[in-house]
């Protein structure tokens, strides 16, 4: 155990974590998750928002156990390593909107950075403009970081602040397992509070126990190794430090091989699962997501793991993502397999304006 612990905090930690994600995510697809969506932090947070009725897009409503597992796995790892530290107060409202716009961008592309890499490893060529856009967004974010952008210091917070997100994960697990139904309307349609898709991606899911265990394992590994799909490129550009990037390379290679073994590798542009072929907005959505994640300090997975470590600011970002999912589906911003939705591109531009204004204006006057 001690050796594994030391290995995870070594420079090989992200590689091990990435490889294990690369193996387990396609296995989740094999057991029922949507194509090239073994784990997608954005899509799955969106599904949870739908299951709670925050949006009513019927095909994408399910309480994804992977998200619960990722957060609680990070919590357990942080507690075991004595790294659970309740903290907060670093511009939570800005972080809420960064999460909201990151989600809008991700849903124009149809995936978070994790899924971008998993789509690539499944042969979906549309992932390439998405990843190019992601890197452009990160490069822009790094320019702001290098010029003194800061959301300010966080401070130690009361213990309760650190426990709210883990408690929320437990509540979601209870709602998943009990799926309470308050009633039906005159047409027999459930009135909630929990909605599960009967068709579409939201109806495609690996068994609950498998999804939960995979989430727990990955959450624990990622908490120890600080795995981050946005920090990977950020640290190479900003610090010439490639140790996180090696984790991404390991993820893509492991997922590619696993997909080949399971017969899930299909090279092409058209008819890829939960994907569209508009290269401009595949890239554009991810420029916004990459920039918002970089300004907030990490990819959506990392925000979940930090939520599990007691970081209330990361928790606010995650709630912002859930709100972004609701906004995306209520106002026709989220893309469909046919292509971008009517107002998706405009929302991406609005989000970029928000991020650039924050990037130029957010400075920490105490840091000097």
């Amino acid at each position, binding site marked *: 155990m001690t050796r594994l612990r030391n290995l995870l*905090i070594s*420079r090989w930690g992200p590689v091990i974590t990435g490889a294990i994600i690369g193996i387990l995510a396609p296995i989740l697809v094999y057991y029922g998750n949507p194509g090239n969506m073994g784990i997608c932090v954005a899509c799955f947070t969106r599904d949870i928002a739908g299951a709670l009725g925050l949006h009513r897009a019927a095909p994408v409503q399910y309480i994804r156990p992977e998200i619960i597992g990722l957060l609680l796995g990070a919590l357990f790892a942080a507690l075991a*390593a004595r*790294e659970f*530290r309740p*903290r907060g107060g*670093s511009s939570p409202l800005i972080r809420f909107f960064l999460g909201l716009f990151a989600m809008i961008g991700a849903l124009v592309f149809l995936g978070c950075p994790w899924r971008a890499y998993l789509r690539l490893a499944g042969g979906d060529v549309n992932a390439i403009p998405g990843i190019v856009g992601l890197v452009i967004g990160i490069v822009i974010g790094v320019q702001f*970081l*290098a010029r003194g952008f*800061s959301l*300010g*210091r*966080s*401070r*130690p917070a009361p213990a309760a602040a650190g426990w709210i997100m883990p408690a929320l994960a437990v509540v979601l697990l209870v709602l998943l397992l009990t799926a309470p139904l308050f009633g039906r309307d005159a047409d027999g349609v459930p009135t909630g509070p929990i909605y599960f898709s009967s068709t579409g991606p939201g109806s495609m899911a690996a068994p609950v126990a498998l999804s939960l265990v995979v989430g727990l394992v990955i959450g624990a590994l990622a908490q120890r190794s*600080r795995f981050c799909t946005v*920090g990977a490129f*950020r*640290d190479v550009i*900003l*610090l010439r*430090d490639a*140790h996180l990037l090696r984790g991404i390379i390991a993820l893509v290679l492991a997922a590619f091989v696993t997909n080949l073994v399971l017969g899930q590798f299909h090279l092409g542009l058209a008819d890829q699962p939960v994907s569209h072929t508009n290269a401009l907005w595949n890239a554009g959505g991810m420029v916004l997501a990459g920039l918002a994640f970089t300004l907030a*300090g*990490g990819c959506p997975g990392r925000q979940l793991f*930090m939520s599990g470590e007691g*970081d209330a600011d990361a928790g606010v970002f995650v709630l912002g993502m859930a709100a972004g999912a609701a906004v995306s589906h209520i106002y026709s911003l989220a893309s469909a397999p046919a292509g971008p939705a009517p107002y998706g591109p405009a929302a991406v531009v609005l989000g970029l304006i928000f991020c650039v204004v924050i990037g130029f204006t957010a400075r920490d006057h105490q*840091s000097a």
Partner: protein
Amino acid sequence: MEPVLVDARGYSCPQPVIMVRKALGQLNQGPLRVLVDGATSRDNVTRLAQREGLSVESQATADGGFELLLTR
């Protein structure tokens, strides 16, 4: 020589690393004392310092963070 202090507590990465790198650039020879609030920042600052050929001494502080001493 009294070490120069970088107080990076409360900042999330990569900011502590940027602050330390900036301080190292302005520093001639003397040691650098760095305060961080968690293990992630400790590890990231340590990795930067080791890449720059500095030696790093780390010790836990009473507030649950770490104090790092970077010397050439």
